[in-house]
């Protein structure tokens, strides 16, 4: 970690991938080799990305920690900073400060079945875990992924979805909101919580990870409960607004916790004890 | 003519108001008070010390609820309410105004016309202190005026109390918080503070009722009411006394200026 906690690493944009309308993935490489060698992170952690002159914003690290040579992030153009990032071209430099926060306890999940439920732009934090786990596939049980977006075009990581769908050791269910499908669409049509209910994965010896917009999470929790998932077996990430990432600026404070320090990964059991300010 | 307590009681009973926004005794001076039941009526006060412009609450929908609301209205509250009504921010019949300057002598006003005639019948005495300061600043050299405002505004901490206290600053998203593009730098610095005050004054041009709530709210006593005051007097000079509404959203082909080449 740097001496000045607000000083970012300077990263070079190695590759830009258009994922969906307004959604891009940047593959970043450290400008400084020494910094790259010293850097490590764990699945679920986030970082502060900056377009110099526009400011910083928070997203998770979307690549797997098992792939050391680069870092990836996926973002949707929404505000000032993401618009500034979107204007950057391959070869340009940007800031990266991290990794921050806690992570998914993947080691505790060894031997268990894993269910991933994601909506829209919330697949990136999950993708980091999924690749991490696929890279060590034989240590885990069944893997089920339920992923939905507004329309077919809005699904991110299309290439990887195809790859996962073709694997025999992954059960992938993709869905789009009613009206978002094209005639050639082969996946499901419906909102994520109802498709999750229809998919009905077993809760025996299972862990569920849910990421998505607040409303999707709100309706997915009861479904998981009905399927028999215990509260401490359901994980999610909170998306509170952050600025510093290091527990100082006060934005992500909920109760005595700071999402940037004690999160972003929480179990449903932990959320039950938290004031509902997320 | 009746006293405040009786009037409030009858409003709760006969008009079925759910809430009366008024004043209560505070820790250092009277403060706004939300009276929600007849039990609280004895707390209501009204006298010369009641300075807050409580018209600021008229546009806060989450505070008002759905029912009829009464408001104890000093002259400044009524003036702001008229302007809010002109800008279609409040509707006739939405509020009952308990107008007066003292608890012993209040009258109930329900429609715009009666508020207007009340305001017309109670001309405001110009605040001599404000006038004096205005003249003092106007008589300075340009360099001194710059030094004066730079010194005053460099103290500003950007708490936006001026905005929060102003009944006419009701925008749901203020220009100070727009960041694409970022017109006004959000941090405190002499220039960005000045930019903020220029924006506030310009957006108040022709709308400001001169209540001085911005100045009274400022924790550092910055004389920011002088900016809007100056504009108000210039506007009535340039575009005519009777002009009301947002001066900048209208025009007159006969407008006179003397600086265009």
């Amino acid at each position, binding site marked *: 970690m740097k001496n000045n906690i607000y000083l970012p690493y300077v990263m070079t944009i190695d590759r830009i991938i258009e994922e969906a309308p307004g959604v891009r993935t940047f593959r970043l490489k450290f400008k400084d080799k020494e910094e790259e060698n010293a850097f490590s992170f764990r699945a679920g952690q986030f970082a502060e990305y900056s377009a110099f002159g526009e400011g910083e914003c928070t997203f998770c690290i979307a690549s797997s920690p098992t792939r050391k040579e680069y870092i990836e992030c996926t973002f949707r153009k929404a505000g000032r900073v*993401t618009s500034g990032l979107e204007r950057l071209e391959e070869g340009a430099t940007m800031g990266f400060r991290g990794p921050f926060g806690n992570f998914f306890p993947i080691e505790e999940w060894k031997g268990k079945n894993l269910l991933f439920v994601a909506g829209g732009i919330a697949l990136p934090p999950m993708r980091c875990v999924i690749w991490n786990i696929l890279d060590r596939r034989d240590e885990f049980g069944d893997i089920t992924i339920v992923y939905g977006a507004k329309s077919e075009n809005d699904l991110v990581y299309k290439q990887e979805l195809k790859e996962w769908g073709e694997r025999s050791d992954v059960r992938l269910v993709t869905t789009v909101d009613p009206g978002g499908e094209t005639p050639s669409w082969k996946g499901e049509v419906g909102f994520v919580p109802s498709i999750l209910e229809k998919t009905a994965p077993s809760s025996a010896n299972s862990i569920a990870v849910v990421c998505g*917009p607040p409303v999707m999470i709100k309706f997915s929790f009861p479904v998981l409960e009905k399927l028999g998932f215990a509260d401490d077996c359901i994980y999610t990430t909170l998306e509170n607004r952050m600025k510093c990432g290091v527990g100082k600026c006060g*934005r992500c404070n909920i109760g005595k916790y700071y999402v940037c320090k004690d999160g972003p990964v929480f179990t449903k059991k932990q959320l039950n004890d938290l004031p509902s300010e997320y | 003519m009746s006293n405040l307590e009786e009037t409030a009681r009858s409003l709760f009973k006969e008009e079925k108001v759910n809430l009366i926004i008024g004043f209560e005794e505070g820790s250092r001076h009277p403060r706004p008070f939300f009276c929600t039941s007849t039990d609280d009526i004895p707390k209501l006060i009204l006298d010369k010390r009641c300075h807050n412009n409580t018209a600021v609450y008229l546009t806060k929908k989450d505070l008002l609820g759905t029912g009829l609301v009464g408001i104890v209205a000093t002259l400044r509250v009524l003036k702001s309410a008229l302007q809010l009504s002109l800008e279609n921010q409040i509707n006739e019949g939405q509020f009952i105004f308990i107008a007066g300057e003292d608890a012993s002598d209040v009258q109930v006003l329900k429609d715009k016309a009666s508020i207007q005639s009340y305001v017309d019948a109670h001309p405001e005495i110009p605040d001599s202190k404000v006038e004096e300061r205005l003249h003092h600043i106007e008589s300075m050299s340009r360099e001194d005026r710059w030094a004066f405002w730079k010194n005053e505004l460099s103290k500003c901490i*950007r*708490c*936006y109390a001026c905005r929060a206290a102003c009944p006419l600053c009701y925008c749901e998203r203020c220009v100070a918080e727009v960041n694409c593009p970022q017109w006004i730098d959000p941090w405190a610095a002499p220039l960005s503070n000045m930019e903020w005050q220029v924006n506030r004054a310009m957006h108040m041009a022709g709308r400001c009722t001169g209540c001085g709530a911005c100045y009274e*709210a400022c*924790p550092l*006593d910055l004389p920011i009411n002088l900016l809007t005051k100056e504009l108000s007097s210039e506007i009535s000079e340039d575009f005519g006394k009777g002009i009301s509404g947002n001066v900048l959203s209208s025009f007159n082909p006969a407008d006179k200026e003397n600086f265009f080449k």
Partner: protein
Amino acid sequence: MKRYIIEKSKVNEWLKQIIKSTERVLAPVKDGEKVYFRPITSPQETDYDSVTTTESAKETVFPRTETLFRFKTEGKDTTLSEVSAESYPQTVLWRARPCDAVGFLPLDAIFNWDYKDNIYNLRRAKLTIVSFSCNTSDSCCFCTSVGGGPGNTEGTDILVTLLNDERALAEVVTEKGEKLISLCPTLFKAVESDEDKSSALAKISSRFTSEQVQEHLKNAFDSSIWKQQSARCIGCGACAFVCPTCACFDIQDDKCGRDGKRIRCWDSCGFSLFTKHTSGYNPRPEQSMRWRQRLLHKFSYMPDRIKVLGCTGCGRCSRACPVDMNIAEHLYSIANYNHEK
């Protein structure tokens, strides 16, 4: 703790030496009706009469706007540079109040409870606090209700108490304080025995205890008291910005052409935009929730998490509030409210 006696008439002589040997001496200076900590060049500029300054002393270590680092772009490349440690001035804060001094402890905790904020720490290390015991108070003061007092030495480097018209007592708490004494060793006479300073202190009666408030806040999250108390709150940031312990901030970029700075500036949990997501979703959409956050953060979350109360009882927020949200009064009603109903 070492104790010295200095003749009251010699205090200015001491201050003169301090001004001479220090880069920056900040002292209360009267400006119109208000009093601010400002750099002084002569002892006469100091205002000794005011109860507190309008703004808190936090700006000595946590300025309203400060540079975190600079950046320079050339083509596609960017280089970063830090602010040098020397540019933070060696500072003496003169005639602070005990509540000013104790206010640095929560700031220390916030900026160091987990990650260490070096920019803050550099400024803090260069700050020496000379506080003066309070001989007067006003209706907004409530330090004795939150564990402080008009003669409290916590957090200060030196506490000066004007015992009577002739003598002043200097209680030196730290090494930093000792250094200031050593500037004028002849002016000070060490005393062994306990000097009773209580008669020189203002009388501020305690209205509640922080333990009482903390206890009541445990189950108060869903209490109806928040809506009731915050109805008149107009949502400005005055209370947070004058508060000695409020440390919430925003990070922004200030760009001019190819150069720029990343800066931090004060922010407040009372602003509606503070927690609002870009998507428009806001976890704290109502003013009552933001008022609750303010009180819970200071009196429940901070003691729970970083073991320090987020309030010094200085009363600045109450003085600054345009609608008289008197915090002591609100805390008193919290301590006497049945939150179950």
